[in-house]
């Protein structure tokens, strides 16, 4: 059984059903205790409704927007780059590699005794030994190190993002 106060709060909040509302209406009209309590709670309710919200500092919006801008700046490269560009680059490489494979396969002459590849006269394959030297290897390892750092950074950001609030 609900207490008088509980019933009156439900009545004031408008959360009770129609029958209960009518019963409380009658009680307020006939019972002085109910009537006095109702007045008290109603007054309290009105005071609570009149409460004013606190005002944050003047620069609040500015600080939030600064945070938002910083959020953009911190955005990982993966999210900042248009995905269509990535798709375009991937497409270019796929088409190029496919064409090269087709070209190579079309020039293959396979016989039971010998195996030889006849490349067109005009196609000159560069001598890799001229390019792969100490300096190139250094650049290659440096690039790998930077790439590894970027990937680790992206991984850590993703992990942090997962830990953060997800509404």
């Amino acid at each position, binding site marked *: 059984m609900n207490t008088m*106060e*509980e019933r009156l*709060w*439900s009545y004031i*909040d408008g*959360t009770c059903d129609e029958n209960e509302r009518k019963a409380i209406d009658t009680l307020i009209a006939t019972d002085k205790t109910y009537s006095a309590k109702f007045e*008290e709670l109603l*007054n*309290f309710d009105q*005071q*609570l*409704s*009149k*409460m*004013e*919200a*606190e*005002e*944050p*500092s003047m620069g*609040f*919006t500015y*600080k*939030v*927007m600064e*945070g*938002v*801008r910083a*959020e953009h700046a911190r955005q990982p490269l993966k999210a900042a780059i248009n995905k269509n560009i990535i798709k375009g680059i991937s497409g270019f490489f796929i088409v190029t590699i496919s064409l090269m494979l087709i070209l190579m396969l079309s020039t293959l002459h396979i016989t039971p005794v010998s195996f030889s590849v006849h490349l067109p006269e005009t196609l000159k394959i560069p001598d890799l030994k001229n390019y792969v030297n100490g300096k190139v290897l250094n650049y290659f390892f440096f690039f790998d190190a930077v790439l590894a750092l970027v990937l680790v950074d992206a991984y850590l950001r993703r992990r942090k993002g997962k830990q*953060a*609030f*997800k*509404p």
Partner: protein
Amino acid sequence: MQSKLSDIELIQQTLSGNQAAYADLVKRHQRFVFTLAMRFCKGREDAEEVAQDCFIKAYRSLSSFQGQSKFSTWLYSIVYTTAMTFLRKKRVDTDSIDDENTYIQLENQSSGLDNNIAEKRSRSYYLNEAIGRLLPDDAAIITLFYMGEQSLEEIGQTLGIDPNTAKVKLFRARQRLKEKLEKSLKEEVKELI
């Protein structure tokens, strides 16, 4: 001057890259978000930090806002989660209603009232003060119901509880607030409530 566009329209503009629209959204909700944060943090600086953090988190997750509930309800759930995390981190000692220290505070306040300070301060001030001394959950539920104009269903969504539980919690929170006011303001409370 604040925008007359609806929250949803401002969200759509923000998602299309208009940051000014988000600034309008912040201006529209900042007072209540800050007040709600104050219920948990008890200090203006901490509350501002939490409120700012909430708006940045909301911006980050704005694309995941489905629009199934009001933006304010969604935003307040972020405030609640962020504030709870903040409390856990800071291990803020929240004052219990029966706490000895609280009672001393109340005693001091009532002696101040003897000098008719009550007349100088608004009723809203005393209510806010008393709410500030409630447990964070009680303070939040009263603030959401009266200031945030949230229904019991929406409060349930924000706090992650059943609407009926929200109703019971609201009833108890109001009772505790009334007791607190009665203790601290004694005679003056009759005028106040």
